[in-house]
C-alpha cells in the first residue's frame, strides 16, 4: 500500500513537471512576452524599450534557465539593467540585494508575484482555492446524491416508465454544456423575462455570504452537467446488478423489492460509479472556469481565466501545479476507495 501511494506521488510530480514546462514554454513565447511588457509598462512602448524591459527583468534568459529558476534549482537572476537599476528575482520590495536569498523557486515555497493582481501568487491561490472549494462542496452535495438517486431509480426496473423518463432527463443534462445551461438559467431565473426572477444572476455576493438566492444558479449549472453523466453510469451498473443471479437468489429467498435494492444491489451497483464520480473532479474544474466567469464568482477558475488572458506567467504556472495536484489526488482517493468498496479486491 505504501509503495503504491509512493509510486502514485512520483507519477504526480512527473506529470506536474511536464505540464508546467509546457505552460512555461507557451507563456514565454516572444509575442506573449511582448504583450506582457506592454501591459505592464505602457502600450506605446518602442521595440527597443520592450527589449530592454524584458532583458532587465530576466525574461530574455534561456528557457531552461528561467524554468530552473522558477523551480528553485538554479539561483535567481541578478541583473544590472540598462537603466542603471539592479534587479534580482529573489529581491523583495525595497530589500537590499545583498540580503536577498539566492534561490527563490517553488521548492523554496516562493510562488512568485502576480503581474495582474500585484500580489503574491501564494496568497491569491489560497484565497481563490478556498472560494472554489466552497462552490465545489455544494456542487458535490447536490450532484452526487442526486445522480445516485436518479441512477438507482432508473436502473432498478430496466425499461419501465421511470427508467425512460429519468434516462431522458439525464441525457439532456449531460448533453448541455455549462455555457449553454448557465446562460439559459440566468435568462430564465435571474431576469424578469419569464416572471421567474427567483435567483441572482451574479454570485459575487456569495463569496462572502453564500445563500440560496445568490449561490443556487452557479451550483446547479455545474452540478447538472456531471449529474447526468454519473446517473447514466449508475443506471448502467444498477441494471446489470439487477439481472445478476444473486439478485434472483435474494428474490427467491422472499426478500421484498425494497430490501433487494437497498441491501443487495446498491453496494454492488456503486462500485463502478464511484470511480466515475472521482474522475468527475477534473471535469468539474473545467466547468468551474466557465461558471465562475459567467457568474463573476472570483474563485480559482476565474483566476485561471484572468491569468491566462493577461499572460500572468507565475500565476498561471501555480494554477497548473494546483490543478495537477487536485486531479491526481482525486485519482489516488478513487483507487483507494475502490479497494474498500469492493471486498474482492481488498482481501485477495
Amino acid at each position, binding site marked *: 500500500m505504501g509503495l*503504491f501511494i509512493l509510486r502514485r506521488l512520483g507519477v504526480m510530480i512527473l506529470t506536474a513537471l511536464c505540464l508546467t514546462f509546457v505552460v512555461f514554454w507557451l507563456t514565454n513565447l516572444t509575442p506573449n512576452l511582448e504583450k506582457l511588457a506592454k501591459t505592464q509598462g505602457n502600450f506605446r512602448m518602442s521595440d527597443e524599450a520592450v527589449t530592454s524591459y524584458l532583458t532587465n527583468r530576466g525574461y530574455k534568459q534561456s528557457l531552461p534557465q528561467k524554468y530552473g529558476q522558477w523551480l528553485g534549482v538554479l539561483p535567481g537572476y541578478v541583473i544590472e539593467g540598462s537603466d542603471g537599476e539592479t534587479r534580482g528575482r529573489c529581491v523583495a520590495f525595497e530589500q537590499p540585494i545583498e540580503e536577498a536569498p539566492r534561490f527563490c523557486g517553488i521548492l523554496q515555497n516562493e510562488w512568485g508575484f502576480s503581474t495582474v493582481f500585484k500580489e503574491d501568487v501564494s496568497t491569491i491561490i489560497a484565497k481563490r482555492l478556498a472560494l472554489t472549494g466552497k462552490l465545489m462542496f455544494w456542487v458535490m452535495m447536490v450532484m452526487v446524491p442526486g445522480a445516485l438517486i436518479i441512477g438507482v431509480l432508473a436502473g432498478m426496473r430496466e425499461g419501465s416508465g421511470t427508467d425512460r423518463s429519468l434516462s431522458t432527463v439525464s441525457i439532456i443534462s449531460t448533453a448541455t454544456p455549462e455555457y449553454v445551461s448557465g446562460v439559459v438559467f440566468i435568462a430564465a431565473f435571474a431576469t424578469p423575462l419569464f416572471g421567474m426572477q427567483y435567483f441572482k444572476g451574479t454570485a459575487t455576493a456569495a463569496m462572502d455570504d453564500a445563500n440560496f438566492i445568490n449561490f443556487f444558479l452557479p451550483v446547479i449549472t455545474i452540478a447538472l452537467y456531471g449529474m447526468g453523466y454519473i446517473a447514466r453510469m449508475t443506471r448502467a451498473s444498477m441494471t446489470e446488478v439487477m439481472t445478476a*443471479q*444473486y439478485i*434472483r*437468489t435474494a428474490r*427467491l*429467498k*422472499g426478500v421484498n423489492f425494497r430490501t433487494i435494492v437497498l441491501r443487495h444491489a446498491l453496494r454492488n451497483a456503486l*462500485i463502478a460509479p464511484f470511480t466515475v464520480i472521482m474522475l468527475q473532479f477534473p471535469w468539474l474544474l473545467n466547468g468551474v472556469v466557465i461558471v465562475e466567469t459567467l457568474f463573476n464568482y472570483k474563485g480559482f477558475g476565474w483566476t485561471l481565466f484572468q491569468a491566462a488572458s493577461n499572460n500572468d506567467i507565475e500565476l498561471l504556472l501555480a494554477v497548473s501545479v494546483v490543478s495537477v495536484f487536485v486531479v491526481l489526488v482525486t485519482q489516488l482517493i478513487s483507487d483507494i476507495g475502490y479497494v474498500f*468498496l469492493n471486498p474482492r479486491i481488498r482481501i485477495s
Partner: protein
Amino acid sequence: MTDTTYDGPILEIDKLSISFFTRLREIPAVMDFSATIRPGEALGLVGESGCGKSTVALGVMQDLGVNGRIVGGSIKFKGEEMNTMSRERLRDIRGSQIAMIYQEPMASLNPAMKIGKQLAEVPMIHEGLSESDALARALEVVTDVKLPDPARILKSYPHQLSGGQQQRIVIAMALMSKPSLLILDEPTTALDVTVEAAVVELVKDLGKKYGTSMLFISHNLGLVLETCDRICVMYSGEAVERGSIEDVFDEMQHPYTQALFRSIPLPGANKNARPLIAIPGNFPLPHERPTGCNFGPRCDYFEDGLCNENLPIEMYPVHGNDRHQTRCLRFQEIDWNAPIDVGAQTAKPEPGRVVLKMDNLKKYYEVAANALFGGGDKKVVKANETLSFEAREGETLAIVGESGCGKSTFAKVLMGLETATDGQILLDNKAIQDIPIEERDTKTIADVQMVFQNPFDTLNPSMTVGRQIIRALEIFQVGNSDAERRERMLELLDLVKLPRAFADRMPRQLSGGQKQRVGIARAFAGDARIVVADEPVSALDVSVQAAVTDLLMEIQREHKTTLLFISHDLSIVRYLSDRVMVMYLGHVVELGSTDQVFAPPYHPYTEALLSAVPIADTSITKKHIVLEGDIPSAMNPPSGCPFQTRCGWKSQVANGLCEKEVPPVRILSEGHQVKCHLSDRDLADMEPVIQIAAE
C-alpha cells in the same frame, strides 16, 4: 414453518404451459407438463439443454422474468394454487417453504455481503428472528452442511471460499427455514467430480434428515439415479416419460429415453467392440418443432402418417408399473428388449512407434502474492512436477484429473504457449520444450494441434466457417493456391461430416456440436499427428457428445493420430482411451492401460475418482468413497504426498511417511505405475470400485 396438517402431495403441476414472448412471436418453452411430488419424495427432471427443465423450476417459483408467462395449467403447492397467488403470499412461500439451489454458486451469492448476513436474512424475513438468533441458526446450519470452522465462514465473503464450499453455503441458505420443497437446478455442474460426490451425498442426507421433497434438475442421468426416487425425462418442452427410477431405467417406454441411454458411455461400452449410438439429427429449436411427435424426425421407430399427424400426443400410462407414463403412440408395438443394433465394429489398432516423449517435465509459475499493489512475496506454483510418459502413434492417452491438477498447464507447455521450467519434451526425438510457439517451424505447429473445450468461444464470430479453416491452411502452408486450399477445406468439412454448404455460414448459425466439428476440422487442417483434446465434449449435450467422440475416434483411426484426451469424465475416458494417466496437484499419481487403471490395485485417488463418477445403470453397485475437503491449492501444496490430506488409506502407512515424503514411482506391472506409499499387500487387497451385478 412446516405445515403439519397437510398430508397431500407437496407439489402438483397439472398440464402446465409456459411461453416466452418476443416481438416476433410466442415461443412455447414448456407444454402440457404435469408432475406430482409427494412429501419426502425426490423427482429428477432430466433432459438436454433447451428442453425447458429450468423453465419448469422458475415457473414453480413464479419468477419467469418480464417475457415469460404461464399460459395454461396449474401449479399447486400443498393444495394452494400458485398461479393466482398474491405477491405477498408468494414472498412468504419463497425461501421459507420452497427453496432453490442454483447451478453456479459463485454467481448466486452476493459478492459484497458477508456469508453470515446472507444466511441470517432468511429467518429474519420469514420468522422475524432477531439478528443474533438468526446468526446462531446460521451457525447451526453451516455446521450441518459440514463446513470446517463455521464461525470463520460466517464472517467471510463468498470469493474467499472454494466452489464446493460456496455450493454448501447455497445449500445451507436453502435449508435455513427448513423448506418442504427444495428445487435444485443443476447443483453440481460447476463442481469437480469428487466435490460433486460429496455435495450430492450431503443433499441426500439433509433431505432425509429434514424430510424435504426435492425437484432435482440435471442433464446427468447417473446423478439422478443416485439422488432421486422418480424421474421425468423432458424433450423439447414436453415430458416424454416419467415413472419411478427403476421403471424408467430398466423398462424404458419412450424412444428418446432409450436413445439417451444408448448414447452415454456406460461400463461395458467400448469404442471398438460396442460403440456408442449417437442420436441422429439436431435438437429442434422451440419455434421449429415438427408436427406431431417432437422426437419424430430423430426417432428410429418413426411411422409416417401416425407420428407426424397434427394431433396432440398425450401421456399414456404403462400398465403394471407405478405411475409410469410415456408420450409415445407406438410404445406398445415397440419391442423394447430387442438387442441393440451394434454399430460398425472395428479392430483395435496396434499402437505404432513412440512419437511423443515427456521426460521429467516441470513447469513452475511465479506469482506475486498481492496482485493489486505489487511487491510482496513471490510464490511458486508448481503446476507440473516430474511428468514422464510416452505416447505412441495411433494411441489415445487420456489425462484425467480435477481442476487445478495441472492438466491444462501440461497442454500449454506441449503446445508451446509456455516453455518448460525443466525436463524434456521430445517430438520425434527433437526437443521442443524450450521453443515457444512463435519460434516453432510450421511443420511442428501443424503436427501438434488442439481441440478446445468450449466451441462457443474458440471460433471467431465474424468470420465464416470456411474462411477460418482456410486461414489455418494458409498458416500451415497447405496448398499452393486459394482454389486448392478451398478444395482442401471442403474435404475437411467432409471429414468432420458437415455439409459443404456450411463453409459460408457464420459460427452463430451453428449448434454446439457443429461448432466443435469445425474446431476438429481446424485442428486436422495441417494433418496433425498429435491432437490435444482439452475436454472436447464436456460443454456439449449428451446426445451430441457421442457423435463428436465417435468422429474423433474415426478420424484417429484413419490418420493414425496420437490423441491426448484431457478430461475429468471417467466414463468417457474408459470408453475411448487406450492408456490413462491420472494427475493430482501436478503429479502423475497413476499411469497404465485403461484396464489396469480401472481395475484394482488403484492409487487411492483413482479409487475415489471412480467412486465419485455417477453411473446411469441400475445394475451397478459402487463402493462408496467420499473425499473430505477440497483440493489443496497448488500455491500451497501439502507436504509429502500431494494426496495425503484427503486420502482414506493414509492410516495404513506407518510412521506418517505420507506427510514426510513424496512417494516414489512404483511399477506394479508391465506399463502400470503408481505413486503411493501403500504396501504391496494393501494394494493387492483393494476391491474393485464398480461391480456389475450378475444378470
